[in-house]
C-alpha cells in the first residue's frame, strides 16, 4: 500500500509570529520553522498502518526551501521517502491553490491512502483535506480520533459536538486525524541516521504540469487587505486570597461588571 502523509512546514507557534508588511504574508525570516505539530499525528498514523501490514510511507510537503526540514523530520520518525514541492511562484498561495498543488502531486504519487493532520498550526483552516478529496474524487474520512485499517476499509471514530460517530470508507481515500488519535513517536538516534540516506525528490510546478498563474499570491482568490497586531490587554487587577478575601473580591468584580 502506498501511504502519503501531507505535512506542512510552519513557523514555531511559541515564537513571535509576524506578517511581512510588504505583502501581508507570514514572515518566515527570523522565526524558526518546523513540521506542524498536528501533522506528527498523521505521520504516526501512517507508520502504524505500515507496521501492521505492509506499505511504504512518503512525506509530501509544499513549501519554501526550509520546508525540507519538515520532510526530514518525517523521515527521521520512520517514513521511507519524501517529496518536496518548491517553486518561487507558490509563495502566497491560498488554500484553494495549495489543494491544487497537493492534488497534482498525490495523483503523480498514485497514493492509496493519503493522511492529513486536523489543521495546520499557522493557517489552521482545517479545509485542505476536504479540498483534496474533492479534487481527486476520493472519499474522505476526517478528524479521526481512532483509526483502524481493515483490508480495504478505513474506519474512524470521530468525536463531534453532538455525537461520537463511526465513519468508514474504502481505499483509496483521504484520511485526517486529530491530536487524540495517538502519541507521536520521537525520532530515535537510529532513525535520525537512517533518514540521511532516504530518497527525497524535489518537484517544481512544471513537474506537476502547473503554471505560475494557477497558484501563488497574484492568483490567490482571497486577499488580505489589512493586518493589525492585537493591542495588548490592559493590565488587570490581581488580588491574593487570604481566608476567603479572594472569593469576596472576585464576586464583587463580577457584580460590578453585571455578570450576576
Amino acid at each position, binding site marked *: 500500500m502506498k501511504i502519503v502523509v501531507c505535512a506542512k512546514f510552519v513557523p514555531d507557534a511559541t515564537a513571535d509570529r509576524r506578517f511581512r508588511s510588504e505583502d501581508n504574508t507570514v514572515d518566515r525570516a527570523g522565526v524558526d520553522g518546523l513540521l506542524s505539530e498536528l501533522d506528527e499525528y498523521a505521520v504516526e498514523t501512517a507508520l502504524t498502518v505500515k507496521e501492521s501490514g505492509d506499505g511504504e510511507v512518503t512525506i509530501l510537503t509544499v513549501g519554501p526551501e526550509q520546508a525540507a526540514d519538515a520532510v526530514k523530520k518525517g523521515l527521521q520518525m520512520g517514513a521511507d521517502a519524501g517529496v518536496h514541492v518548491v517553486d518561487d511562484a507558490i509563495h502566497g498561495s491560498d488554500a484553494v491553490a495549495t489543494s491544487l498543488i497537493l492534488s497534482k502531486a498525490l495523483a503523480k504519487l498514485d497514493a492509496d491512502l493519503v493522511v492529513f493532520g486536523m489543521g495546520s498550526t499557522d493557517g489552521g483552516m482545517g479545509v485542505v483535506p476536504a479540498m483534496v478529496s474533492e479534487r481527486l474524487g476520493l472519499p474522505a474520512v476526517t478528524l479521526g480520533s481512532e483509526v483502524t485499517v481493515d483490508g480495504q476499509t478505513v474506519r474512524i471514530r470521530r468525536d463531534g459536538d453532538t455525537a461520537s460517530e*463511526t465513519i468508514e470508507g474504502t481505499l483509496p481515500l483521504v484520511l485526517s486525524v486529530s491530536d487524540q488519535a495517538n502519541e507521536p513517536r520521537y525520532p530515535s538516534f537510529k532513525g535520525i541516521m537512517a533518514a540521511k540516506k532516504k530518497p527525497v525528490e524535489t518537484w517544481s510546478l512544471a513537474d506537476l504540469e502547473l503554471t505560475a498563474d494557477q497558484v501563488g499570491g497574484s492568483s490567490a*482568490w*482571497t486577499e488580505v487587505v489589512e*493586518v493589525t497586531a492585537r493591542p495588548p*490587554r490592559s493590565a488587570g487587577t490581581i488580588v491574593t*486570597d487570604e481566608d476567603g478575601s479572594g472569593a469576596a473580591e472576585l464576586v464583587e468584580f463580577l457584580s460590578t461588571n453585571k455578570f450576576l
Partner: protein
Amino acid sequence: MSNVLVLVDHAAGKVRKTTAELLTIARRLGEPVAVFVGEGVQDALPALGQYGATKVIALSNPELSQFLVAPKAEALQQVAAKVEPSAILISSNAEGKEIAARLAVKLDSGLITDAVDVQAGDSAGPVTTQSVFAGNYTVKSKVTHGTPIITVKPNAATPEAAETSPEVEEFDVSISDAAKTARITESKPREATGRPELTEAAIIVSGGRGTGGDFGPVEAFADSLGAAVGASRAAVDSGWYPHAYQVGQTGKTVSPQLYVAAGISGAIQHRAGMQTSKTIVAVNKDPEAPIFELVDFGVVGDLHKVLPTATEEVTKRKA
C-alpha cells in the same frame, strides 16, 4: 438586491443561535436566502423568518444526512447555480468548514474561514475579519474570485430580529454516486448536560490541571453563573473531562462575555481558544502563571477554596 445564501445550522428543526447570527450578517450584504437540509423545516420557519430570511429552500433528500458532507456540498452547488448568490455564509464548525471547502473547489471560488466579523465593504464584495496566530493579530480579507464563501464563527454578530414571512420552496437535488463513498455506520449522541453550548455561552468557567481531577468546584461555580464548562487539554488528556469541552487550538475557540480560567496556566495553545473573550478572570495559585498577563481580574489562590466560597456568595446574591 442580490441573494446571500445561508446554510441553516439546526438539530432536527431546532435552529441554532449561529443561524440567527448568519442571517443578521447576510442582511448587511443582500437578501438572505436560507438553505435548510434535512427534516423539520416547518419547525425552523418561525426562527428563520424572525431573523429576516426572505425565502427558505428546503432539501429533504435522505441521502443528504446519511453520507457526511460531500452530498451537502453538491446540493449547495445546485442551489447556487439556481439562485446565483453574491455570497455564501456557513457556520464555522467542523462540518461547515468541510462543506465550504468542497464548495470552493466546485465553484472555483475563494474561501475565508473562521470570520469573527463580516461587513459589506465596497462594490468589491464583503470584507471579513479573522483573528489569527492565537488571537495576536486581526486580519481583514476579501475574496477576489468567484462567489465569496465565508465560514463564520459563533458570536460574530448580535442577532437582530427583522420579521419576514418566508415561503418554503422544496428543491430537488441529485446526488452523485461519487459523493456517497464515506458513510456514518454508527452514531452515539452525547449526553445533554443542561448547560449552555460551549461556543454559544455568554459565560464559560474552565478548569485545568490545577483541578487535580475534581471538576466539582468548576461545575458548581459555572452553574451558579449559568455558565458553560470548558477544560484545558491537560485536563482532557488526563481523562478528567471530555474532549468536546476542550478550549484551545485543537479544541473550541470561544469568545464569551466572561471567561473564567481555574487552575489553567495559560499556554499559547490555550490562549488561541479564549484570548478574544471580552472579560477574562483567572484563579491560579502561582502568581507567575502566564494567564495573569491576560486577565481583567485575577485571584492568586487555591481554586478548591476560592471557587466554593465564590459559588456560595453568588448563589446568595442571586437569591
